């Protein structure tokens, strides 16, 4: 991957990947920082990136793992709460439905949330989700099924509360 190819890849996919990672972790600033760092690593390891069938998946997975790693280190080190674990910072006024969806996603188990985001937001088929996560397709199908049910219940609860 030469400089021009990398620059085109970066320009075309940065916003899309950031949106997907945001949906996974519920924090937009953190998502943007991690995606930025993932692209730095992508250039540092570009020979490996060239071998990857799906460079965008490589960057997305790296960014997501960076976010998880930051969160775990923050918790483990018992440092004061920072943006990595604090409430999502909303830089603009999103719709009520958007806020509810992000809040509901954040309540799901990590594995279910990741499967839902990759399948429904990143629009990956099940077998690609399975490959990216590194588990069998059956496991992804189960996570999607449970995740959809849990998400529906959470959104229904939220809707009931807002109408009460």
């Amino acid at each position: 991957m030469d400089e021009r190819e990398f620059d085109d890849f970066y320009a075309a996919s940065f916003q899309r990947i950031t949106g997907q990672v945001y949906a996974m972790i519920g924090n937009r600033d953190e998502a943007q920082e991690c995606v930025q760092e993932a692209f730095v690593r992508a250039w540092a390891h570009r020979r490996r990136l060239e071998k990857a069938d799906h460079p965008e998946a490589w960057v997305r997975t790296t960014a997501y793992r960076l976010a998880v790693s930051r969160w775990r280190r923050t918790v483990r080190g018992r440092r004061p709460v920072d943006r990595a674990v604090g409430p999502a910072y909303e830089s603009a006024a999103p719709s009520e439905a958007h806020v509810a969806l992000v809040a509901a996603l954040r309540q799901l188990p990590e594995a279910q949330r990741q499967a839902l985001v990759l399948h429904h937001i990143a629009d990956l088929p099940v077998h690609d989700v399975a490959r990216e996560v590194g588990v069998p397709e059956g496991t992804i199908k189960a996570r999607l099924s449970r995740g959809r049910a849990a998400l529906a219940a959470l959104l229904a609860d939220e809707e009931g509360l807002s109408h009460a």
Partner: protein
Amino acid sequence: MRDPLDELENFATPGLTMDPLPASEVRRRGSRMRRRNHALAAIGGVAAVAIIATPLAMAASGNRTDTTPPVTTQSPSPSVTWVQEIPADFPLADGMPRAAAQDRYEAQSDADACNGLGWSPDGPPAAVEVQQVHQTENEGGVDRALAVYADEDAASQARLSLEARVQECATATDGKARYTEDVSSDASSLFYVDHVSEIGEMYTHQVVQVGNALLLTTVYSLGGGDPAIVQRTVDLIEEKSAPVVDAMKDVFAQ
């Protein structure tokens, strides 16, 4: 009730002010990271060579005929007695509830990117006692082995020899589909990864020395090729093996 699938598939990031770094700056930082990683690998290699070469040079100096006074080496106190057996109640399977003991050491040689890379109880130097446990996971497996050597020098020699082979293999396989990654090392431990397939299968290895004993942990998992996943795996192995390392300090440290 709202359909969660509609909500998900219409997910957008409203109001998200994207202010990414210019692509040229991303590349500059990436190139700097690459240079730093290579420099660290080079320093590690030089240090390992120096550690191994120094005793050899000192041994060779015994045949010289010049008038320089011979270098004196600090021998361990004769009173030091190294534990030669693994206690029956040693918690080698700590944190592995479904672990099964294995009678003999199962090497991961088929995973090695270079011939003769991995640790062997036969050495040189040979371990005087080895115990191993294995736990099969749904999506991987964990092996943990404890090897006891005659003394601390023998254990150090085994560890440093492995460390040197890892660095040599990492250099030889850089850029190849199957490669060894030298993750980190310090005065008593090292981490390295054998990336064995293009779908991301990897064996992550931790080696920790305490006194005359080595703890060798190997975890098979997916996600190889991704530095973040490698780091996460390393962190988890370190966390899980910490109680075993503490137990080693009680038994094998002097």
